[in-house]
Structures are given as structure tokens and as C-alpha cells.
């Protein structure tokens, strides 16, 4: 089994979502990727729906520093404190959990704990989780700061890459969406256009 890659630590947790901060600046998991956090005996699964790099202090915005520098790297090199004053964080939508070896694709009874580690799921875990597409309805029905089409398309693209032949998975997901979006053909068309 491939070693699970730790991508961050939870700094804010709700039943439906959690926010995690990365240890290194810009080491963010991609949009739509499946992440997990362990709160024994429960493993929570989330899908990354938003990522941001901001100033540590909300009131203090970064200022432009590169006027006299020749490259962007130079800026960070000449102001090493920058990486300490900024932080990268990402938000994940909770889409399921595992308890007693059983995988559930709906909301867990309790939210994650603060300071739990967040890992990027392995190919095998992604494949297992995406056996059932029930989680799609969570993505569709949760109000998000970005269009659900974008998130779903990104998520499905990510998941399809975990498979040797992505085509059957994408078709199955497309069909599931066609049923969920039976009255909204335009939205369906938008998603299908992004995953083909």
C-alpha cells in the first residue's frame, strides 16, 4: 500500500466541512481531491472544494515587494519571513466516513477534531470510495462558494485518474448525474463538457 501523504492539519471543523492548514506554503491538495482525517475509530472523508493562501493575521494584507527583484523566487529569498507570515489552507466538504471497516457515503455523526492530520487518499482508497456515486448528491446539494459544476467535474476527473480505464467510471458517473439533474439539462451539459 502506498504511503499516505500528509497534507495538513485541521484548524476548523464543522459537521459538513473542515478547514485544514498546510505545513508548507502552497503545498495544497488539488481541487476535488479526496482527503481523509482519522479520529479513531472513525475515518472521515472529504473532498477539497476550496483552497486559499492568506495572511496569518486577517487585518494585515501582504504588500507588493517585487519592484526591485528580478524574479519571484528572489522576493521570497530576500524576505524569508514571508513564508512564516502567510499560510495555505484548504476546505473540504465531508462526504462520508468509515467505521468498523464499513464505508458510509453520508455525513458522520460527529465532526472532525481540531489538529487532526489530513491525508491525501491513495489510489486504492479513491477507487474504493468511488465504487458508489451516492456522494454526488452531497456535492450537488450543499451551498458552496464555487459552482457545484466545477467541483463535481474536478472531483470526477480526479477519481477517474485512479482507475486504469477511466471511461466506464465517467460514463457511470455521467449517468448518475443525468438522473440527479433530470430537470436541469443545462447544468448536466456543463458538467459533462468538463469531464469528457
Amino acid at each position, binding site marked *: 500500500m502506498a504511503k499516505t501523504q500528509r497534507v495538513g492539519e485541521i484548524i476548523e471543523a464543522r459537521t459538513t466541512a473542515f478547514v485544514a492548514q498546510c505545513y508548507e506554503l502552497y503545498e495544497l491538495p488539488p481541487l476535488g481531491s479526496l482527503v481523509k482525517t482519522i479520529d479513531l475509530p472513525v475515518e472521515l472523508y472529504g473532498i477539497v472544494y476550496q483552497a486559499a493562501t492568506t495572511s496569518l493575521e486577517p487585518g494585515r494584507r501582504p504588500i507588493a515587494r517585487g519592484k526591485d527583484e528580478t524574479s519571484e523566487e528572489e522576493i521570497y529569498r530576500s524576505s524569508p519571513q514571508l513564508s512564516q507570515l502567510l499560510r495555505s489552507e484548504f476546505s473540504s466538504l465531508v462526504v462520508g466516513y468509515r467505521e468498523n471497516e464499513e464505508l458510509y457515503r453520508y455525513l458522520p455523526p460527529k465532526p472532525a477534531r481540531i489538529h487532526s492530520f489530513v491525508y491525501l487518499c491513495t489510489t486504492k482508497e479513491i477507487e474504493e470510495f468511488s465504487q458508489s456515486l451516492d456522494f454526488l448528491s452531497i456535492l450537488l446539494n450543499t451551498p458552496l462558494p464555487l459552482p457545484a459544476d466545477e467541483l463535481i467535474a474536478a472531483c470526477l476527473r480526479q477519481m477517474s485518474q485512479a482507475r486504469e480505464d477511466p471511461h466506464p467510471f465517467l*460514463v457511470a458517473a455521467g449517468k448518475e448525474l*443525468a438522473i440527479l439533474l433530470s430537470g436541469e*439539462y443545462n447544468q*448536466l451539459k456543463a458538467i459533462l463538457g468538463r469531464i469528457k
Partner: protein
Amino acid sequence: MTREDTGRQKLGIVVSGSLNKGIEVKLDSSASVEDMAVGRYVTIEGNKRRFFGMITDVSLEVIDQKLTLTPPDVSDPFIAEVLAGTSTYGTLHVLPTLTISGDAASLLQGPQPVKTVPSHFSTVNLASQRDVELVFGSEDEKKFYIGTPLDMETKICLDLTELVKRSNGIFGKSGTGKTFLTRLLLIGILQKGTAVNLVFDMHSEYGWESRSETGRKVKALKQLFPAKVAVFTLDEEGSRRRQVSTDFVVRIGYDEIEPEDMVLLRQTLNLTEPAIEAVYQLSRRFGKNWLQSSLDLKDSEETNRLLKEMSIHESTYQNLQRGLATIRRLPFLVSHTRDNPVKRILEYLDQGINVVLEFGRYTDITAYILVANLLTRRIYAQYRERTEKAIGEDIALPHPLVITIEEAHRFLNPELSSQTIFGTIAREMRKYNVTLLVIDQRPSGIDSEVMSQIGTKITCLLDNDRDIDSVLAGTPSKNELKSVLSRLESRQQALIFGHAVPMPVVVRTREYGSPESYKDFIPRGQAEIRKQAEKDIEELWE
């Protein structure tokens, strides 16, 4: 496509429907609309019972009307694949006809007519060979293999014992294979011995070999079953030229023609109503020899006096004489015969030998109507007498007789059907063990009362609306069958429905006309003919 162990192929699920209007089935995305065909069989697995049905319509649906307004880009196979079966899907209209419930008693009884519909979302499968066998039975001493259902190898069998209990009809446009079907059916009846046949063979196709439309020689009954078939002919010369071994040359005496026979010829001979009246008067006056006597009447004072006496108008008389002259020109009519054709036919029929009466060159309808009627009336009278006697004396009834007539609308049209013997036979049916096999290309011309009495209808393609309506009149789910009927292929396909089959069925008719096919018809034990058939097959390869 999903195939279960039983060989059934899942098509979809029941989504709506009613017993009257049939059931709507949503197709699974794995089943393509293009693979469906009207007339195919499906089974529906309800909770408590299984249903058999036939596909009667196939349609396309969309889940969202926007799809029809801004169609998706289906050139992209991915989009097309996703939408198929979800946003866009096919539906089948299925007509349930039979059911089997799960309990033991009903398993013994076999399939029963439907009285309800399957519950929501019951699985619909394409019927397997076994299902079809369960419904139509397999070939045995009573059941005759007539053809196979569409896209299947299973044999569809007709229960010939049931078939001959009612009058039956074979319909279809010209050139759709009525003759082949009739030959098949006659062979079946002959082979299974459920009845004896009397065939009025207008175009000389059933007794001895003839050529099919493709120019191939096709054997007929006498060649396949020489011991069981006798060929009678009206046209001795013609039969001899075709090297037919005939058993009897039919001659009809003037004294055998009765006024009733003239009534039927009214239309073909263009006789007026008073002319028919005159025939009766003449017959009353001259007795049995009325025709000869009438023909002998000369234009004389005496005749005029006679006509005046019987108050027959001059023009009526002229009209009648013109008609009689047409009859007189028929060479098989003679003033008197010693040998009575009716007696001879009955002799053969009594021995269980089937009789085919060839008309040879007398293919005009006057000769056909005259002879067929004349003979049938007397044969029927004999049968009637015997049946009544049998009932009275409690002995075995006479062997069932099937009389085959072509161009049936000429005998059974609304004006004539009440007068001809064929109308009577069709209506009174099996009371006297005589039934009809009606062959026609214009069923709309047949009296609806007669049509309603026809037990089993076998129809090839019909495309005239009136014909289709008249064939399907009175059948439940007429509209569904209509769409099946009008979409039959123009050859070798027929819709069978009625008394002898448990449910309507579209068959691809069994092959007839090749040496191999003959071999199948000939019963084992008749070594000589089998050998001939094998020889024919060899010759084919030479």
C-alpha cells in the same frame, strides 16, 4: 447486454400501463431501441406471477423537454453514452396476453389469459426459447410446426385438432405467401390426420407441382403423400400437359345445376333480380332439367306464350339467356353425366383420402363459384345427414372435413354470404364437422358476420386499412395488433391469432419448397418417398 443463466435478456422495467391499453416498459440503457422489434415476445416477472406479452410499439422519450430543443452534441460518444438510457431513453409498449401464477394448480393448467397487469417496476426480459415452448407447446401428434417466432429458433406449433374445429382464414396481399402457408397448413392437417381436406384449387397449385414466383418448381400434396391425396380435375387436357396423375375427371351435368347455384352467379353473370326469379319459375315448370330445357327454348311464338304465361318480361328473358350462354360455354358442363362427382369425392373422403380439385384453365370466377358451390352443397348435405344419424344412433361422427376455398370474398360478401353454402358452413361451424379454410386477399369484402366466426386467422402483410380492420375486427387490443400487422415483411411472415394459438404470434413461416423441407414433412416409414427426397437433395448439388 445483461444475460442471465436462463438465457433471458433483460430489457427494462414496467413503469406504467393498464390492462386495456397495454404496459409501458422503460428500456435499460444496455438495451438498444434499435434491437427491439414489434412482434417480439417478452416475459414480465411480476411478484406472484409471470406474464407473457408481445411488443407492439417502440418509442423514444426524453426526461427534460429542453433536450429536444437544444439537442446535445451526440457526435461525442461520451455524451451520447451518458445520455442513453438516462436523459434519453426508449420505451416499449407491451401487450400482456398470458400469465402463469406460481401455484401448482396453475402450473398444470398452463398459461391463462391475463386478467391483471404486473406490478410497478417488474423486470421485463426478452422471452427465451423455453418460454415460447411453454406457451406454444412442442411438436407432437396433434401439434404442427408452422414456423419460428422472429429472431428465434423455437418452433411455434399450431394445435390442429383445435384448428379444424372452427373455420379458419388465411389472408394477405397478393404475393405475400398465402399459397405457401396454405400448402403448409394442408400438409399439417394431412400429416396429423386431424381432418380430411377438400381443396377447390383455382390455380392448380395444391395437388401437383407448380412454379413459385422465383421460378422454382415446388412440389405439392400429391407428390409428397401419393397415397393420401387424390387429384380431381376439371381440365383433363391441361392436367395431362402438366403430367399430373389425376384420379378423376369431373364433369357436371346440366341436370345437377339448381336455381340456388344461379343465385350465386348473379353478380358474375350480371343477372338481374327478375332474371333470378325467372330461373326459379323455369325450374318449377321444367323440373330437374330446367337448364337444358331453357337453353333449348327457341325464339318462337310458343316461347313467347310460355314467357307470358310465367309473366317473364322479354328483357329479363334476354338477360337470363345471355347468362346461361356463359355457363353453357364451360366445357366441363355436359347435358348429363353417369358418374356423379359428388359421390366420387365422398368415396375418397370416406377413406380418409384428401381431394384436390384442379380447375386447370377454367380460372374464371364463374366456373369456380359454380363448381365449388354445387359440390360443397351436396357434400355438406351428406355430412349433415350422417352427423344427424350418428347423433341419433350414437355412433362415431364422420371424420372432420375442411373445405378450402380461394377468392373467398366472392362467395362470402355481405350480399351472398347468407345465400351460399359457405356462409352457412362458416356460421354453423363445427356442428356437422365441416369447416372452411378461407383464402383471400381482400378480407374487407367478406361479410363481417362470417369474419367474426372465423376461429383462427393467419394473416400475411395487409396494407389496406379496410382489410386490416376487417381481419382484426372483434379481437381485443386491435390497435396494437394493427401496428404489428402492417409491419410484417412482405414474405414468409405471418401473424397468427385466434382459437388455435394461446396468444397472437408473428411467425417466420417454416421453409417449404426445398428438398430438405420435403424430407421433414414425410413421415418415417415411407422409405420410398424419403429416398426420392434425398435424391432430390443430391441432384441439387450436382
